[in-house]
């Protein structure tokens, strides 16, 4: 928990908006743009950042619905061809946000959607982007989510380090102890 407290990606993931339904009224807040007074009525539907929605959900003040990035349209596109879907434009932290939402919403298929999308995209897109030329890779990088981009960069760094190791210096070095000649008795 402590290591995620300062994590910038975790903070930005929790800034994604989620639609909620208020079960309790709240005074002195201007969250609901349709409200005439600075309060939220019971039954109001508003969009809140996930960090706020999550805490209010834990206190049974709201219930969370699925955001638009996980709607039916996105699901159909992922089913058709997950590798070509521009997930970054839907939600830059598609997987992380989905994982955080999954235990809080009633939709039990969200986990399967995330898992399927990641497996297909990893197999069809990420493995090929690692070995592709920079020109080819640059076509697909804007479609990748932040998590996928981090994986790509890690693989790219590993590949660069491997090539550097291969070309730089002898692979095997004779142990210095083997250099000692024994005196013939």
């Amino acid at each position: 928990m402590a290591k995620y407290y300062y994590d910038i990606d975790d903070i930005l993931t929790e800034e994604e908006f989620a639609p909620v339904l208020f079960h309790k009224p709240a005074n002195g807040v201007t969250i609901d743009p349709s409200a005439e007074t600075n309060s939220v009525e019971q039954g109001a539907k508003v969009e809140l950042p996930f960090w706020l929605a999550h805490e209010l959900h834990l206190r049974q003040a709201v219930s969370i619905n699925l955001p638009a990035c996980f709607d039916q349209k996105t699901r159909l596109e992922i089913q058709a061809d997950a590798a070509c879907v521009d997930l970054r434009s839907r939600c830059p932290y598609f997987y992380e946000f989905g994982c955080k939402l999954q235990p809080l919403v009633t939709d039990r298929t969200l986990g399967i959607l995330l898992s399927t999308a990641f497996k297909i995209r990893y197999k069809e897109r990420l493995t090929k982007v690692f070995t592709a030329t920079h020109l080819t890779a640059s076509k697909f990088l804007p479609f990748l989510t932040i998590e996928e981009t981090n994986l790509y960069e890690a693989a790219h760094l590993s590949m660069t380090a491997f090539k550097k190791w291969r070309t730089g210096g002898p692979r095997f070095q004779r142990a210095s102890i083997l250099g000692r000649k024994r005196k013939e008795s």
Partner: protein
Amino acid sequence: MYGRKGYQLPKDFASGEKGHLKPFNSKLFDETIEECDQNHHLIQFLIRHLSLSICIYFTNKVFCLIEGVDVTRKMEQEGLDVHNNRNADHYGALVHHLSLIHNKRCLMAYVHNRADIVRDLAWRVGLELLDLPPEIQDKLTTLEKRVLQEPFCSYQIVHGKSRNRVECRYGASKRTTNFTRHSMHFLKRTDAELYIA
């Protein structure tokens, strides 16, 4: 309101190149602190309002007990929905409290991640602030510059007969001496004492 200023701090940090510092956004930092103050004032207002509602409720309850009247019916007659108002004030204060905590997290994460980069810079370049190019020095705050100017080291001294074994836990770079992290050195006690922080 509701963490919108605080959110811009990590966003500003993430918009820079990885491992590279951007100039400290003191304007946004101050605006976030100002938003925290606003949250705090509203929490106090709502708590006072909540306390007043509780006082009204219990005062009416005492009078009703004396007069033998049902307190709920009396509240409805007078149009005082104290129970719901009490809940509404509570949840309103809760929203402001959560916003305050979130802004605190954003402020601390911003400073913490910048400090990580400054520490990495110190390890790579050494602790000589004046050796850094001016364009990098301009991005550092006064506090961050002080980190680079002062040595940060911790030593464990294991006493020996004539020499002591010194384990350098963090490392330091002075003008004449360079230590790497977790390196072991044998020094005279008088020499080792100079480096104890």
